């Protein structure tokens, strides 16, 4: 009786018990979901202070969004009056409907924030530098996709908030010379936000963008492994260890990360033989003491990060409702009509200069972000060695945040300066 059961279990897990090191390794190697991890990870990589797990949290938020989003699709029809009625049904009659909608809404905002913070973290730790330049570019594209997903989802409730945010948002885009109006027409399937726009945004939101997002996320994760694993605060290593650091693809001239010749004392894997170079950033005789098995150390940490993310989103969703205003009314523009908050920095700029806010600044910002790893040739990742880069990026972040805060909180009817503590009477 026991043997068939054990055989069945063995046929599923195919690994030695987890109490053995072999079992711990096989848990990772033999599992399709876990083998994106290495069997053993550097202790440094697990430190919260270096990454804040922001990449993981962003990914977990994406998972929450996919799950709740698929659930919401069961009750949503992408057609003007019904779309709004379906929001009301989610709120009033569908079991857990408003909870799921709240979770979806708040996770979406959370993801925009976390993906931005993740980008900041990667910049400040210099992790975009050789050999990770291209993964940074993929990251920028993923950031833009996140904005695109959030923006397309913003329209779907078909209330006044959605309608006018998308009207304003797509108009910011139409300031782009030559192609702006054409892109807007393509996106809306018309010249104003109407039923074809809703359908197009829906298809983009539930099919096109998530598919692209998933594929690029896979590439992003793959590149993390292939580019030498998670980055570590290498500048904090003891000198004797730092001396042994190598970076794949690094030319010999730009020390300190030089390639070392193969060592007799180490067994090399096929990958290392193929590349001719070790695939880890460090090759150290004392490697054993620097690393731990992914199971349980890394997995429990990731589990904690996942649960903390889920718990936060759930708690927020229990107490704060996702907004839903009156049915979209193309004849009545709210004053002020605002784009989604992450575009309010641009709207603020557009209010001063259409060309500047609508074209120059966003184009330059995206271009600059993409080019960062190819322009910043300073090989050092030590913060003390890259003061100007850090100052410049900090300025970029601060300006961004200030513009968004101004656009969100300090702009009232007619885009006039109205601090949030001033209440305007009679304003609709």
């Amino acid at each position, binding site marked *: 009786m026991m043997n068939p059961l054990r055989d069945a279990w063995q046929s599923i897990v195919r690994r030695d018990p987890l109490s053995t090191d072999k079992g711990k390794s096989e848990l990772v190697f033999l599992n399709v979901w876990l083998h994106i991890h290495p069997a053993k990870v550097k202790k440094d990589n697990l430190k919260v202070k270096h990454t804040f797990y922001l990449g993981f949290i962003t990914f977990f938020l994406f998972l929450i969004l996919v799950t709740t989003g698929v659930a919401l699709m069961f009750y949503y029809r992408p057609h003007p*009056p019904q779309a709004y*009625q379906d929001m*009301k*049904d989610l*709120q*009033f*009659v569908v*079991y*857990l409907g408003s*909870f799921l909608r709240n979770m979806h809404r708040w996770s979406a905002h959370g993801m925009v924030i976390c993906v931005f913070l993740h980008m900041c973290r990667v910049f400040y730790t210099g992790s975009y530098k050789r050999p990770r330049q291209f993964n940074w570019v993929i990251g920028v594209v993923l950031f833009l996709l996140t904005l695109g997903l959030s923006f397309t989802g913003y329209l779907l409730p078909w*209330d*006044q908030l959605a309608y006018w945010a998308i009207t304003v948002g797509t108009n910011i885009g139409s300031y782009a010379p030559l192609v702006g109006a054409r892109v807007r027409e393509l996106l809306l399937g018309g010249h104003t936000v109407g039923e074809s726009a809703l359908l197009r945004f829906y298809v983009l939101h539930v099919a096109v963008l998530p598919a692209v997002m998933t594929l690029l996320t896979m590439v992003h994760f793959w590149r993390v492994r292939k580019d030498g694993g998670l980055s570590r605060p290498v500048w904090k290593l003891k000198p004797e260890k730092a001396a042994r650091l190598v970076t794949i693809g690094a030319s010999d001239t730009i020390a300190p990360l030089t390639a070392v010749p193969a060592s007799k004392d180490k067994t090399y894997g096929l990958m290392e033989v193929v590349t001719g170079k070790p695939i880890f950033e460090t090759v150290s005789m004392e490697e054993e003491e620097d690393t731990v098995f992914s199971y*349980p*150390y890394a997995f*429990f*940490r990731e*589990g*904690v990060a996942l*649960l*903390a993310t*889920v*718990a936060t989103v*759930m*708690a927020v*969703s*229990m107490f704060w409702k996702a907004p*839903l*205003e*009156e049915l979209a009314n193309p004849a009545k523009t709210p004053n002020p009509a605002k784009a989604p908050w992450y575009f309010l920095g641009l709207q603020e700029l557009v209010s001063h200069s259409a060309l500047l806010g609508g074209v120059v600044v966003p184009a330059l910002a995206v271009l600059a972000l993409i080019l960062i790893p190819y322009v910043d040739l300073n090989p050092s990742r030590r913060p003390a060695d890259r003061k100007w880069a850090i100052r410049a990026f900090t300025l970029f972040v601060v300006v961004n945040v200030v513009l968004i805060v101004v656009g969100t909180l300090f702009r009232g009817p007619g885009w006039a300066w109205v601090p949030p503590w001033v209440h305007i009477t009679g304003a609709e």
Partner: protein
Amino acid sequence: MERRLPQFFFALSMIVLALMLGAIWQAGTPAWRSYQQEFHRLEAAGEPNAAAKSGVLGANLVIRQALLPGLQRVDRCTTCHLGVEDPTMKNARQPFTFHPNLAPHLPARFGCTVCHGGQGLATDNQNAHGKVPFWQEPLLPKEYIRASCGRCHKEGDVPGVPELTDGRRLFETQGCRGCHKLNGVGGTVGPDLTEEGAVHRAPAWLERHFLDPNAVSSNSPMPNFHFTKEQARALTFYMLSLTSEQMATYYSSVRLIPSAGYGRQLFVEKNCIACHNIGGVGAKSGPDLLGVTKHHSPGWLDEQLVNPELVYPGSIMPAYDLETNARKAIIAFMAAATAEDAQSILSRRPRPLTAQDAAIEAGKQSFARFGCVGCHGLQLQGGVPNPNSQGGEVPSLLHASDDYTKEEVIAIIRNGKVPPVDNSAKPAPPLYMPSWKGVLAEEDINRIADYLWSLQKKKESW
């Protein structure tokens, strides 16, 4: 840290579990469930035997709704207001109270919100009563609910709601359209009022506004019309009824209610008293209408109003183009009409009745029906361009008596007339008077002439 990790993991798992249970508890205990349970207890108290009691108590708790595609609404009010159709709940407390006098507006066909306002889709007190931000139709206060009748019954009188008729009349007579647009017609000084009853729905504000515009909206350009309280109330009612909401034919077909009051209005407008009398008061050309509904069925009377010729060949009564409910209204008026009614109608006529009136009225109808107005105009003013005729247009008929005798006019109608040509080199004028001999009976031609002369005389008397 390393050792505490599993404890963190455990704690967070428990938190997620607790939050999930919390969400489930929140979703599983909406207020309407306890209302339904309470109602079932109320119902059970009224049941005689134990089996019926337990049957009522064990009934499922479900969201009740009326699907109203014709009104583009879904009303879930009866999820809590469970006793609206149950007369035994007459004295039950809200939300279970019985709604008297529902027929013919049965909840299954009409729902609740089309009259009461509120948010039909909602299932909790605050939202359902619409007293929340971003809902434009909050529940109407009790004293204003009757204004909602005007949302479907847009014409004529609504029995029991004189305010609507008064409000409509005030709006059209006080020059409101000078500043306000309604259904696309009117000025642009004030706000468009087409959706006033659908968007604002603030009855108290409106009423104070009519009494003194400045009191509620400072520096309002609207002058103070010094309306009385009744007038302000009537205008408020009318405002609350204004909506361009799309309604299916089932609802919009009763734009006017076939009331006796509206029938009387039509009776005056169509000048019935010019031929008919009621109990001997009025003209004698047509039959006495006193008790006419007792001698004839409503169906017969209706047919008579549609086409008198079919019922009585050779009847001189013209066929009036009246819609179904207008005919019903006239019949309703005739059922109750007395000689006193006829007397009061007569006394308000601008000029006394003459023997000619019957013929004139019939002539007027023929004039309209046979297309004379197409060239000569509704006011007989003529003016339709007719190139290369003398004067270049179809002549006005208002001065026919200056140029022709009545006999000459009758001859023209009978035989037709080609208009005198201005320039014989150019093509003949396209319009000419056809011969009506085969189309119109001799009496018809005579009556049309009578009608034309009646207007000439009026002109001379001025």
